[in-house]
């Protein structure tokens, strides 16, 4: 590259890009075609009063038009073409631009405002200029009579008003940016909470000998994270424990609380696997977390599975504030395994938790769920309720008793039926004992 080539490029190219950059600056402030508002109207009327002129505008010079953010004394005028001579020229000046008699001034005589309506003879404007030097538009006054050049004081006032417009535009832009940033932050936080919540659920349930287990999480809304949780894990003594519940609240706080709850229950089970003791420990931990006016509480069921020699499983189940589990018996009947009377965990001074027991024989299944399901509205507008859920399952007992997977598939169909009436997340955990215990395969010989 030679030095001699550079001035040529500098002259040809930037002429176009300077206007592009100026237009980018105009767009940046997002002012074009916004409705009139008080601040700019007042600036225009103040300009008219200071200069003693009947008309004044706050104008923005767009690519092919001059658009008026405020127009004092020019009823019904919103924009005009970008013909040179008035605003289109004044906006690009460094200093105030004055036309004392437009008809006699070759710069302005061709402008439609001069030879047509409203018959402008006098025009004075100060440019609205960004900090990086782009002329966005003007604060200007107009008159239909020729006038003397305004005093220096008046022109200085016009410049101050243009600077005031610029300050206002900057303030609005930073507010717009703050709102956009806040919106992004919230979306990020929500995404993070949702990711966190997914990590709070076991990626796959462990395989428990002689038992089929299936779990699902149904999301009601994509923008608010619920706090439902479940888990199934081995105890030190060869038994298995499971739990399922729902924390109060939504969003990132709920996700954090869900995490705390899940790890507390796991740790509590190692310390003392008695179901009621596990809930009591959780209650104590949640109360320790209680801050000010925002108590953190949840509902949960916690159970311990004890395999018997006949292939059945004894279940000890404790509940705090949670709707009844449902047992689907091999004969097609549905039985509520209720812990009614068990109270919310983490909220009350001396909560009471209720324990019950049941047995899952071959062919039986147990469904645990959170209240997103039973509080869903049916097409008729009523809450589904535990009774509604039990009836639904009883009507489809043949499907529902095809093991834990079949049971969840049946509940999934119910979700599809209710889809419009579900307003809360729902966690599901199904446990079933296969009918004929599959004989242990003989040692592979090949």
């Amino acid at each position: 590259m030679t030095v001699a080539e550079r001035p040529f490029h500098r002259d040809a190219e930037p002429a176009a890009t300077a206007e592009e950059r100026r237009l980018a600056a105009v767009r940046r402030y997002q002012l074009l075609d916004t409705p009139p508002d008080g601040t700019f109207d007042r600036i225009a009327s103040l300009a008219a009063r200071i200069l003693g002129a009947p008309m004044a505008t706050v104008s923005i010079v767009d690519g092919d038009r001059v658009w008026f953010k405020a127009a004092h004394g020019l009823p019904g005028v919103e924009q005009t073409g970008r013909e040179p001579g008035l605003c289109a020229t004044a906006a690009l000046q460094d200093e105030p631009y004055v036309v004392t008699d437009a008809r006699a001034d070759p710069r302005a005589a061709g402008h439609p405002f001069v030879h047509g309506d409203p018959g402008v003879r006098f025009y004075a404007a100060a440019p609205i200029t960004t900090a990086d030097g782009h002329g966005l538009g003007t604060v200007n006054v107009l008159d239909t009579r020729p006038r003397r050049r305004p005093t220096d004081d008046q022109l200085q006032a016009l410049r101050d008003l243009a600077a005031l417009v610029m300050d206002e535009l900057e303030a609005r832009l930073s507010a717009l940016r703050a709102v956009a940033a806040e919106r992004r932050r919230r979306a990020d936080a929500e995404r993070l909470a949702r990711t966190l919540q997914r990590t709070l659920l076991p990626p796959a349930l462990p395989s428990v000998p002689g038992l089929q287990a299936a779990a699902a999480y149904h999301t009601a809304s994509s923008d608010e994270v619920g706090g439902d949780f479940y888990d199934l894990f081995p105890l030190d003594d060869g038994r298995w424990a499971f739990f399922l519940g729902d924390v109060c609240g939504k969003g990132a706080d709920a996700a954090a609380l869900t995490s705390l709850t899940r790890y507390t229950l796991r740790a509590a089970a190692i310390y003392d696997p008695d179901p009621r003791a596990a809930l009591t420990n959780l209650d104590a931990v949640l109360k320790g977390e209680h801050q000010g006016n925002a108590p953190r509480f949840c509902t949960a069921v916690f159970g311990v599975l004890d395999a018997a020699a006949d292939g059945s499983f004894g279940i000890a189940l404790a509940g705090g504030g949670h709707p009844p589990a449902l047992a689907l018996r091999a004969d097609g009947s549905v039985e509520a395994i209720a812990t009614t009377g068990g109270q919310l965990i983490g909220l009350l001074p001396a909560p009471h938790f209720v324990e019950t027991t049941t047995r899952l024989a071959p062919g039986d299944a147990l469904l645990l769920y959170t209240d997103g399901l039973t509080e869903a509205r049916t097409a008729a507008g009523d809450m589904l309720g535990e009774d509604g859920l039990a009836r639904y399952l009883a009507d489809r007992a043949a499907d529902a008793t095809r093991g834990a997977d079949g049971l969840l598939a049946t509940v999934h169909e119910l979700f599809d039926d209710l889809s419009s009436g579900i307003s809360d997340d729902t966690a599901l955990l199904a446990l079933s004992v296969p009918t004929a215990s599959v004989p242990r395969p003989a040692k592979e010989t090949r």
Partner: protein
Amino acid sequence: MTDRTLTAIPRPHPSSATVLAVSGELDHHTAPELTEAIRETSFSPETPVVIDLSDLSYCDSTGITVLVSAYKRAQQHDARLILVGLNPDLTRVFHIVGLNQIFTFRTTVDEAIDALSAAES
């Protein structure tokens, strides 16, 4: 944006009880209204509190928290507290979460006042 509203208006009752009439939707957004009203209500052995929920159309878990805070204040000040007019859905929820054991319920304000004066005599 949801435009949920809640009002909580205390009405002194000739019987010396305070009746707090709550109407609207009680959730995360509106809970501060009721929290404030409960904070300003005097709880004492001489002034039992009746919270009238007959016109409450919705109550979520935050709302339950606020009602439990009223229960705790009543316990603390040895004041009697009665909830009135719980709708069937809310009654069901209170039953599931075990709050039916800590609250006393009545169908109407008059029944609540009768119950309070019966207990006094």
